[in-house]
């Protein structure tokens, strides 16, 4: 999986949990919280959906890795690739 594909995975999840947000201009290097109205309940949902849809585990101590699209891609891409290599 590429980092761009990984960003799309995260954006798809956000689109489902927050359908009232406009995601057409999300800046990858800016914190999601600063450009979208997402609260802690929403971030929990991003984590939960990653587990449900993709089998990716994000421990609570590492939630801040999901702050922006760029940081999410840095953090998640190796996890996706490790998972793909295993199967």
């Amino acid at each position, binding site marked *: 999986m590429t980092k761009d594909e990984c960003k799309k995975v995260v954006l798809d999840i956000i689109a*489902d*949990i*927050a*359908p*009232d947000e406009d995601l057409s201009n999300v800046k990858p290097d800016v914190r999601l919280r600063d450009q979208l*109205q997402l*609260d802690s*309940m*929403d971030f*929990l*949902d991003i984590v*939960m959906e990653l*587990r*449900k849809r993709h089998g990716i585990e994000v421990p*609570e101590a590492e939630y801040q890795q999901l702050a922006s699209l760029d940081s999410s891609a840095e953090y998640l891409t190796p996890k996706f690739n490790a998972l793909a290599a295993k199967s």
Partner: protein
Amino acid sequence: MNSASHYDVAIIGAGMSGLAAGIRLAHFGKKVCIFERHNTVGGLNSFYSIAGRKFDVGLHAMTNYVRPGVKGTPLGKLLRQLRIERDEFALCEQKQSRIAFGPRGETSLHFTNDFAVLEAEVAVKFPDQIDGFRRLTALVKTYDDVSLDAQPVSARQVVRKHLTDPLLEDMLFCPLMYYGSATEHDMEFGQFVIMFKALFLEGFARPLEGVRVVVRVLLEKYRQAGGERRMKCGVQRILAREGRAAALVLDTGEEITADQVISSIGAPETAALFAADSQIPNSEFQITPGLPASLSAIASATAGRLSFVETITILNRQPAELGWGSDTIIFFNDSARFDYARPDAQVDPRSGVICIPNNFDYGPGQALPEGIFRVTCLANYDRWARLPEAAYQADKQRWFVDVQRSARRFLPAVDDAVLAAAVVTTDMFTPRTITKFTGHLNGAIYGSPVKHRQGRTALANLYLCGTDQGFLGIVGAMLSGISMANYHILQKG
């Protein structure tokens, strides 16, 4: 019918909070079952039919309404968490509501879903209080009311720091208390904030077809997520072992197990299910009358005292055609001070709430087919609970007349004969009805005055959601189920 004997999570009660918790858990792959004693869902906010006519229970209006695009409020949070599209609830806004105080409602404050209307009313009717009112509003806006570990503070004390006119103080408390307070005379400030936002800063709305629309959406989401439910199958006992809920005994006598249990039936009602469990006779479900003395004592220690009667009048025309205007909800009180407490008499008709469901803005060409006029007043459970049937029916009829007479003082005058000719049918519920259909001790709609924000109980894997967790109103109930499912189960992986 499903008949598995082990679940990841068992939920007691298919009200708004239980359904919401169930949707969250099932969506994230938990094997969940909701056990509901009755044959309908919705709990306190349900509906029933008599002679083909559908009546809503509970719901006058859904509070917490905000328009599309307003984010970060309870309604938006719950729609997101439950993956519900806004349009599915088909909410229609109120037209206008009113708080009317004095023997004939001489002092009134109008309000709508636009907070500026209430603010302007306060400025005109209470000019020396408006600065304090604005300070109070600012405090409400910044207060963290959903904190799960806030310390209780008296709302009366906090409000009096900002408002010095007791009439205005009472007028603001009246709607907030009637729509959610389990506490007599005062409220916990966090609860006041929740209600102030829900009613004044946000607002009222309703689907044209009433609460059943909301219930239908929740049920469908729950079903789609793979949740199970067993109707006409309550939980009779919780078997406690080593500080945990080890098993649930159902009304059928069957025993099931679950890793975790969420109860929406109230704190004392839940405690009664596992306290001294060996003493509970394995008989037909009965709440107070059949409860062993040891359990009655435990339960009454924290059970709520506030109950209500409601009269429902079905009219053959829109209430506005009778001359009753377009007010949606009217909170009334005729006395020098507003007395929110269990009355000594069966009913206290001095104050109450009028609801005219026809007066929501359903859009062009859309209207309820019949007129509906509902009046709610405070009532005393004990004075209704033990009446022989004949006396019960006679007292209902007598109070029906008194409640309506009292409420009509706050509406434009309509000739008795004209009103009588417009009446198609009537119904009335009492504290006894509430206990029968909700299981709440003392007919206490809003549950115990003692709330358990974190939802913990004496058993490690048994949690509370709903009324006694402490988020109020229908939206609050759903958020309560969501919060407890997240906090105790989903966040723990």
